Every structure is written in structure tokens, then in C-alpha cells.
């Protein structure tokens, strides 16, 4: 069964299914394939550092300082300062209160990592309510339970309502280059030509 997001806006509740929008669904796709000189299809593989084994696929594992394997559930996620990170539930597990409004500039300086089209029987009413209330509503979004929720914007675009999952960027204002200070010269100041 398709997973549903539940939005609460004022007194109203909206249940929406989400459907990912990607290039393949809209335009098709193009890929580079590799063939032998005879035109036979080839498969990608990897040679290890000694050239002794043809690897088909690799995975990642964790080891401690004593080079013992550690499973993922023995580990704790921390930030760059070593502070443990809180685990947030999946956004699908709890209703989303639409209370935080976002400006045009907030979406403008964010990079979109995923786009979903929302579908609901009362979708037009939700789109109208969002348009009347703000440019955009924003809320934390975790597809699955995790440590670093992304920011999702509700973006009504005429007939459709899109959910834009984003990450904020470090875009900043750049200052005028000022490498030296110019000392004021008075008209009566002589220009020193001795310069020795």
C-alpha cells in the first residue's frame, strides 16, 4: 500500500500519497553502454589492487582500532564535534502540522534533492489553502527514520502540489575587495621625489 503523508492546516486534515518525479518518467533516459570490438555487450567489473580477483560488487563495513568488525547497530551517530545526534522518526509516521512559513528566498538558496507530486482527493483545497497562507510551508522531512532530516517545501504550482525535499546551501554575500587604505593627500602636500 502506498505510504501517505498527513498534513494538518488549521482545522483541516489532508492525507496525500506521494509519487516521485524524476527525469526518466518525464523524458526517458540516455546511457553510455560499453561493447567489445565485435559488438558484444560488456559488464563492468573491478580488479583488486593485486590484480588477482575480478570483483563484481563491493560493500562497506566498519572496523574498530583493533581491526575487529563492528555491525551498524553497535554504532552511534555523532556530529563533527562528537556530540550524539538525535534520531528523528519517518515523516510518514506522524501528522505534519503546517505552521512554519517560508519565504521565496529560503527555497531559492536551497538545492533540491528529491521532488514528489502529492495526490489527494481534496488536493485542490490543500493547494488553495497553502497559496492563501504563505509562499511556501516548510517542515523537516525524513523518508526513513534518521539523524539529519532535510527541509521539505510544499510548492503549489497551479493544478499540482509538489513536495520539494531540499538541503540548505552556504550561499553568502561577497564583500568588496579592500586590500589597502588610501591616505588622504592635501593639495598643499608636496610629493616627495627624493625617494631614497
Amino acid at each position, binding site marked *: 500500500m502506498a505510504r501517505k503523508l498527513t498534513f494538518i492546516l488549521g482545522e483541516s486534515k489532508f492525507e496525500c500519497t506521494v509519487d516521485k518525479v524524476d527525469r526518466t518518467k518525464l523524458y526517458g533516459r540516455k546511457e553510455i553502454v560499453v561493447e*567489445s570490438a565485435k559488438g558484444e555487450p560488456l559488464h563492468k567489473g573491478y580488479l583488486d589492487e593485486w590484480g588477482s580477483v*575480478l*570483483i563484481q560488487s563491493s560493500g562497506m563495513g566498519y572496523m574498530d582500532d583493533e581491526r575487529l568488525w563492528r555491525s551498524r547497530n553497535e554504532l552511534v551517530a555523532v556530529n563533527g564535534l562528537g556530540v550524539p545526534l538525535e534520531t528523528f522518526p519517518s515523516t510518514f509516521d506522524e501528522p505534519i502540522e503546517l505552521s512554519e512559513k517560508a519565504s521565496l528566498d529560503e527555497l531559492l538558496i536551497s538545492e*533540491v534533492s528529491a521532488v514528489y507530486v502529492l495526490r489527494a482527493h481534496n488536493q485542490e483545497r490543500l493547494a488553495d489553502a497553502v497559496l492563501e497562507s504563505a509562499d511556501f510551508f516548510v517542515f523537516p522531512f525524513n523518508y526513513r527514520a534518521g539523524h539529519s532530516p532535510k527541509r521539505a517545501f510544499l510548492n503549489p504550482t497551479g*493544478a499540482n502540489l509538489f513536495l520539494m525535499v531540499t*538541503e540548505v546551501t552556504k550561499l553568502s554575500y561577497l564583500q568588496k575587495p579592500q586590500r589597502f587604505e588610501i591616505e588622504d593627500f592635501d593639495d598643499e602636500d608636496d610629493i616627495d621625489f627624493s625617494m631614497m
Partner: protein
Amino acid sequence: MRAIYLTDSKQRDTHVAFESVSQENDTQFRLENDDRVFSVKVIKTTFPSSLARIQQMSIDESQEIEELLIKGDPEIDFNYMGKISSTTKTVFVDDSEQIAYHLRFKDVTYDRKGQETIREEHIPSPSNITLEIPLVWTHKYIPLKKLLQSVAVTKIYQIHHVNGLTYDYLFHMAKDLSDRKCAVLIGAGEKGREPLRFQRDGLPYRAFLVGAIDGEAYRLSLHLSNLELKDYVDVD
């Protein structure tokens, strides 16, 4: 920082710099007692333990794949699975698992239903952001709200000045766009109709320049998109 060759609204061109503004994820993993761990790359499957090889083994109808998997462990290469493999080299192998040395690259295009429509020799596409022809300010202005309701911007680059002259140049571009409250479409090629490509054979993107100013400071950014905000159901 990399260089980019831009034109302004008065067709004055120069090289300036740009850089990614994506935030880095600083999440790390530790043991509960705060001891550190490090991640290692390990071998999961080798070609002798691949599904294709198991399928070859099950050609005899009396030996179905599931039977082979239940009876033994052909999917596990006990000599190599789980072995640490820090550096690898990419190779291409044929159906008999021999490394091929003469390669031909083909571009294959599929329609929205996954049907192959075109197969042709691959011609490498170079990056086009620092060619002899500068990127063109197309004078196609798009209000910012309309831009955000029309496309998904998946990558943003900040444009940087490299000296006092280019500060002035970029500041006025940012002010022009800020006054108009619009983004401008930036294109490649003599007429500016081609999309931008930042790496050789990289994805082509439509690019929109967006500007804002704050006193003498400016923010000029290139917003890249290869996805329109459309419901694919409406396209059918």
C-alpha cells in the same frame, strides 16, 4: 575554485570563478564508549559467484537455481567475500569473464516507457563553460517565483570575483537581476541555446543566474536544473 566565462547584459565578457555551495554532511559513527571506528570497502561478490554464473550452472533442468542455492552456497566466494579491498581499478569483462581491451562506447536512448529508441556511436561532450565562446546572457528573464514553480534546482554555484574589476562587473550583474526580481537564462553556444555542461560527458543543465545585493555586498549564483515541475501523468 574553477573558472567560468560569463557575459553580462551589455555583452561584456570575462572569466570569473565559481564554487559549489553544498553543505557537507559531518555525521560520523562511533562506538557507544566513544571509541572511533573507520569504514572499509570489502568485496561482496566476485564474477565466479555472480548470478549469471549460477544461471549457467543451472542449465540442466534437474538443477534449478533455487535448488543450487539451497544445496550449496554458489553465491558466496569463500576465498574473497568480505576481504578488504581498498583500491580497485575499473575493467570491462565479456560473458566468458575475460577482460576486454578494445572497447566501443555507444549512446543508448530510451523513451519514457523504457523502450530503446536510438543506439549510436558515443561522441564525447566536452565541458562548455570555459570555451572560446563565453556563456550568453540570453535576456530571457524569469520572475523568481515562476522559476521556483517551474523547475527543480538541483545544484547551485556561487559566482566569485577574482579582482576589483570583476567585483564591479559581478556587483552590477547582481544589482540588475535584483532590481528586476528575475533570474536570467544563461546558455552556451553562439546563440546561447545550448545547455551548460560542467564536466566532460557530464549531465547537461539549464542554468539561471540569480542576483541579490546588500549594501556593497552582492550574491550572484548560478542555479542549475534538468527537471521541470510536471506531473508525469499529465505528460502521458
